[in-house]
């Protein structure tokens, strides 16, 4: 687009009220219209992988929980999957069900949290307070089942750390009933409010082709009509038995437009889907062991002997999260640990979403992918005290080099 004298640059971030975490956007704007955007991540790199590779695997598990406060079950679930694959550990069925229940509870609270944040970005604080008030029900259940509101410490290699007792079951059913009763009201306030619709319809549109080419994941991709969900495409745990289907706005009887409104629709649908999944898991959950290694020293000894590599994938509330782990015999920790959070895949879709929108749309478009910067920041290149930027060509060249090196 043409540059004129009235074009100027607006920096948003690394610290800005619209951003809950640190990232820097530089918008080129003309009046209120956005001509282009430059996204610069890298402000919250904490060297988590480096720390993990210097600790034993059980410590890494707790570290992985602290990658993200919201997805604090997603990362450990993926890590244990990867390690179990590498070390050849079986997981008892009951443990698999418990993992699914807790991760669906997490999706529930994450989507409700997002709904509140989105409402706040729109300047609709009443909706923020409403969403966060009803979110307390699922937080209470998480605390009841795991002992914590965040960082649940549920998965362990070979199973889970806590069982769900029969007395707890009715409380969970009570919560499911509460949300089902509330669902109509919630979808009414979000989907039928004229001011919400005015601010989200045809805003931040991501075309299906763009979503496909830029590898968008999670609700961001599904709102553009891509039926893409790890739980459906590559079933793991007991998701294979649950007939999980990736939901798009079509399932709500709407035409797919890929805008922010569609992203609200998809997340609301997923709240209902998670309720169904939790209910079904509770009904079908078999009795039995919850872990194949009740004693930690035995587990550590087994892991120390293990050799191999594993990949774990999971549909976190924001999209696909992947962990890669390589274990070497005689070593307590992983020799390689690689984490890919969903936000990483959803960064590039931001660029077409921001194009030709208005300054007023920046917060809601930024929030629409439900970004989590500290999950995503994995690399920060610093040379002699100064940050360095690598282009696509440079990165390609380096990865070719590495492949050649690996192939010997």
């Amino acid at each position, binding site marked *: 687009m043409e540059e004129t004298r009235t074009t100027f640059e607006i920096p948003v971030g690394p610290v800005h009220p619209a951003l809950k975490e640190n990232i820097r956007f530089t918008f080129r704007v003309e009046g209120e219209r956005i001509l282009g955007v430059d996204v610069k991540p890298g402000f919250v790199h904490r060297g988590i992988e480096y720390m993990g590779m210097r600790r034993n695997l059980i410590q890494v598990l707790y570290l992985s929980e602290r990658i993200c406060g919201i997805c604090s079950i997603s990362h450990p679930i993926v890590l244990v999957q990867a390690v179990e694959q590498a070390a050849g550990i079986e997981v008892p069925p009951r443990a698999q069900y418990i993992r699914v229940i807790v991760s669906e509870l997490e999706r529930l609270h994450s989507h409700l949290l997002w709904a509140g944040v989105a409402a706040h970005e729109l300047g609709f604080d009443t909706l923020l307070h409403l969403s966060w008030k009803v979110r307390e029900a699922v937080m209470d259940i998480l605390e009841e089942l795991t002992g914590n509101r965040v960082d649940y410490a549920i998965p362990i290699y070979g199973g889970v750390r806590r069982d769900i007792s029969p007395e707890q079951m009715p409380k969970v059913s009570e919560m499911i009933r509460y949300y089902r009763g509330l669902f109509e009201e919630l979808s009414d306030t979000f989907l039928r409010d004229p001011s919400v619709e*005015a601010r989200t319809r045809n805003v931040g549109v991501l075309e299906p082709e763009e979503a496909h080419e830029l590898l968008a994941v999670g609700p961001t991709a599904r709102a553009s009509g891509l039926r893409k969900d790890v739980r459906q495409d590559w079933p793991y745990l007991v998701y294979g038995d649950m007939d999980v289907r990736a939901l798009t706005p079509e399932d709500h009887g709407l035409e797919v437009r890929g805008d922010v409104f569609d992203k609200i629709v998809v997340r609301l649908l997923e709240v209902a889907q998670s309720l169904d999944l939790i209910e079904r898991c509770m009904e079908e959950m078999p009795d039995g062991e919850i872990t194949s290694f009740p004693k930690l020293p035995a587990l550590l000894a087994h892991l120390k002997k293990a050799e191999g590599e594993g990949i774990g994938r999971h549909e976190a509330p924001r999209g696909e999260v992947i962990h890669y782990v390589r274990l070497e015999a005689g070593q307590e920790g992983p020799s390689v640990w690689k984490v890919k959070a969903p936000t990483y895949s959803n960064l590039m879709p931001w660029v077409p979403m921001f194009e030709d929108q208005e*300054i007023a749309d920046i917060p809601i478009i930024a929030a629409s992918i439900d970004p989590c910067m500290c999950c995503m920041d994995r690399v920060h290149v610093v040379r002699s005290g100064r940050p360095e930027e690598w282009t696509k060509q440079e990165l390609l060249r380096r990865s070719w080099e590495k492949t050649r090196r690996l192939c010997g």
Partner: protein
Amino acid sequence: MIVQMIWQSAAVVLGGLLLGLVYKGLDRKLAARMQGRIGPPLRQPFLDVRKLMVKENVVPRDAVPWLFHAAPILALVAAATVLLYLPLGGLAPVLTGRGDLILVLYLLAVPAVAMALGGFAAGTPFSAVGAQREIVMMMSYEFPLAVVVVGIVWRTATLGHSPAFSLAVVSGTPLWSLVGPLGVLGLALLLLCLLVVTPAELSKIPFDIPEAETEIAGGLLVEYSGVNLALFYLADALKTVAMGALVVALFIPYGLAGVFGLEGLVAGIVDVAFFLVKVFAVVFASVTVVRVAMARLKVDQVARGFWIPITTAALAGLVLLILDKAVVG
């Protein structure tokens, strides 16, 4: 005479400030209750002002200092002056006979202009965007506001009251009972328009576009701090009272003293108290309830909304009043 007027003015302005801050406190408390929160104590606005008064007054490097400092003072003075022209309950305006509704309209626009000037003078991107938005907002809501005022004044004049632009005359002539059914409908439309213009004039959600905390971090106020910010805050408090008082003066200028047959000091006190309740009711209906029930709109949506539906409604109200004149006389 002059000395007495100065004393009266000082009393009105101080009273207005006090009242404005109390209304702000009530607004915050009630909004919080409607959102399921506890909310701040009623005296929170007073605490805020006291705190801001002792905070550092930062001036950005690229700012135009004299304009940057002048803007909050200009806003406060203009907002205070409006109050002196408005009838407050049974009391006539302090400056009766020295200016009229047209002047009030201009004075109401001054704080907004001052804020825009301050925003531009700050010389940073967010404040510049905020200032541009403020100007667009003003261009949007000023016309329907003028139509409302002209409609009321014209109908008052046709009933043989003069000078028609005097607020004392307008508020002394409650039109509702003097016009026919068409006129009542027209007046209702004009009242509706004025109630929609009120939150826009006061930059409250859904029209808090020039400040838009989540978008431009406070917009034209982003660079202001300390005393300057406190002055803008006080100007806003005064403007809230002024807008409420304007709506009351134009549309609900009724008193209770006459109904109960009171006289003297008691009548004055009852009328002033009733006036405060009316102003609060207006502020509650058009600011508090609206800002709790809506999301922030975008500036183009607001401009379109004011230029087409609201202006049309205001003009329709005016036409109805004209028809009413033709029918009733």
